[in-house]
């Protein structure tokens, strides 16, 4: 089974600073890590490879330093890494990113399965995975918490819902996005780290991918960030006291006055 895992390098801290002029992330001085949800995607891919054979290829779009994220993925069992890197891709929103990654995946060759984390910890959009499947015109199953059954032709998975889960069967190739309940990512081995250190990372630029210039980077991005701000904290609540029946009456009055 040939599996492609799409990962994103994100700042480690959850307190991301925003450049107030450009409204983009300020990455300086913040340690970069693999998006935590993507770690589950990598682990699941490696487990499937260990069961069925094949290979796990990792792809990420980002600046040259995203190379380290690909090597980390290789240290925990992935076979190869592709870095989609070009100034032409800078400023991509989720639509342009998924278009570009889909283009890279077509270039990477045949695959049976694509796995993504359910969302990135910095943007929290959960749109790139589904976007890739749309661009590649393959089925997608989001929020997968368990792979129940898999062959080279189809897959049956449990998909997490807010209350309970549903079981979905899909033909392959397909795209899954996974939640943290699916597995526990492994710690790298020394041999894996050694392999990762010397692994060759393939760099894919716009020259190799030859994508539609109108659909990539900032100009291919329909989303325009107008303003980013921290919402004002909510004002403190009002405490009601007295007998329960009085409180209930006061509460009903307050609700009537305020909202309805």
């Amino acid at each position: 089974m040939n599996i492609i895992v799409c990962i994103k390098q994100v700042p480690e801290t959850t307190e991301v600073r925003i450049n107030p002029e450009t409204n983009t992330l300020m990455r300086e001085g913040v340690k970069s890590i693999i998006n935590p949800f993507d770690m589950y995607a990598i682990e699941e891919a490696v487990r499937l490879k260990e069961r069925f054979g094949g290979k796990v290829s990792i792809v990420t779009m980002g600046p040259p330093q995203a190379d380290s994220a690909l090597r980390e993925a290789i240290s925990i069992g992935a076979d190869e890494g592709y870095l989609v890197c070009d100034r032409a891709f800078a400023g991509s929103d989720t639509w342009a990113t998924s278009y570009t990654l889909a283009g890279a995946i077509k270039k990477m060759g045949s695959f049976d399965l694509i796995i993504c984390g359910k969302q990135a910890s910095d943007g929290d959009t959960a749109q790139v995975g589904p976007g890739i499947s749309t661009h590649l015109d393959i089925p997608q199953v989001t929020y997968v918490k368990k792979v129940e059954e898999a062959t080279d032709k189809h897959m049956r998975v449990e998909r997490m819902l807010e209350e309970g889960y549903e079981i979905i069967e899909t033909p392959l190739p397909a795209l899954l996005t996974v939640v943290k309940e699916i597995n526990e990512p492994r710690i790298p081995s020394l041999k894996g780290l050694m392999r990762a250190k010397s692994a060759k990372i393939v760099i894919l630029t716009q020259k190799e991918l030859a994508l539609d210039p109108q659909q990539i980077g900032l100009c291919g991005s329909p989303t325009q960030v107008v303003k980013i701000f921290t919402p004002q904290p909510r004002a403190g609540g009002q405490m009601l006291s007295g007998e329960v029946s009085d409180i209930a009456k006061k509460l009903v009055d307050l609700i009537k006055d305020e909202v309805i």
Partner: protein
Amino acid sequence: MDYLLTEEQKMIKDLAHKIAEEKIRPVAAKYDISEEYPWDVLKVMAESDMFGLFIPEEYGGFANSVMNLCLATEEFSRACGGIAVCYAASALGTFPIVLFGTDEQKKKYLPDLAKGKKVAAFAITEPEAGSDASGIKTVAKKEGNHYVLNGLKHFITNGGDAETYVVIAMTDKTKGARGASAFIVEKGTPGFTFGKKEDKFGIRASSTRELIFTDCKIPAENLLAKEGMGFIVTMRTFDMSRPGVAAQALGIAQGALELAVKYVRERVQFGKPISTFQGIQWMLADMATEVEAARGLVYSTARMVDAGVKDVSKESAMAKMYASDVAMKVTVDALQLFGGYGYMKDYPIEKYVRDAKITQIYEGTNQVQRGIIALKLIKEMAK
């Protein structure tokens, strides 16, 4: 302080650090209470190739390096001295085979130990033979192609959980220390059973048991080195393993220091974090300096061993003695900085005091270490 570690050594240290923080620290208190053997953590160490750090590549390991062992043991011990010793004790049981095994013995035992499929243990101590190893009563009698072992070992770390044991027994009682020999004994050999498991003050995640040999017949090819070399095997093994014990002590001290620094920055008294008080600061400064001095001694000794320096008895003894004395002092001071909270089991620091104590005792008490050091000094002067 920068110890100018190689890329590979940094990789080992970082990986061990990750294992310690993600897999050891969260379960340290649990195993301290339950006294169960931490197989789940050892499995992670095994999958990360940690058991191969002290075994040569040709036998499935990573490199035979005491420095590697020290870096990993130090990091593990920062999080839990008990879990760390399960690992380090396997190195202790493995070294005699690495040092004295024939090619066949190495091929038979080392690959499984390197992959962590099996854990090893070293057995010399007996109820009446602690620091005075010449008091060993366990005997090995040659009968045809076998040796027959009879006797009792006690206080054996990894006893019962290890699969591969190196056991010191007397093959010729009349020769005293020169009558001891070393044997590889596998768990499950008829006549080899386990006695009581000790209820310990510290390092409670590790198992400490009696080994009982009752007409235990082992193949003659399980003799390590030659008959009569048991004490040489032991001394050479301890020269290799003492830096590991020193690294365990160092890690315990470092872990306690880190917890203490974190705590004094958070603890507010008289309207200020107690880290702003000079009395506290001076304690921290002494603790940190002593830990760093211990690290210098441990790493230097480990590097000497790896470089093949023949006689490292004095330096090994110094590293073990000094690092464990520092561990004891620093953990007690760290508990003091936690004040009343430090005395409570709800806080992690009291465990460090309990875990530190054994490092002054095992693999030769610190009094024995001082004896080794002094004797060397006097001999050197007499040359």
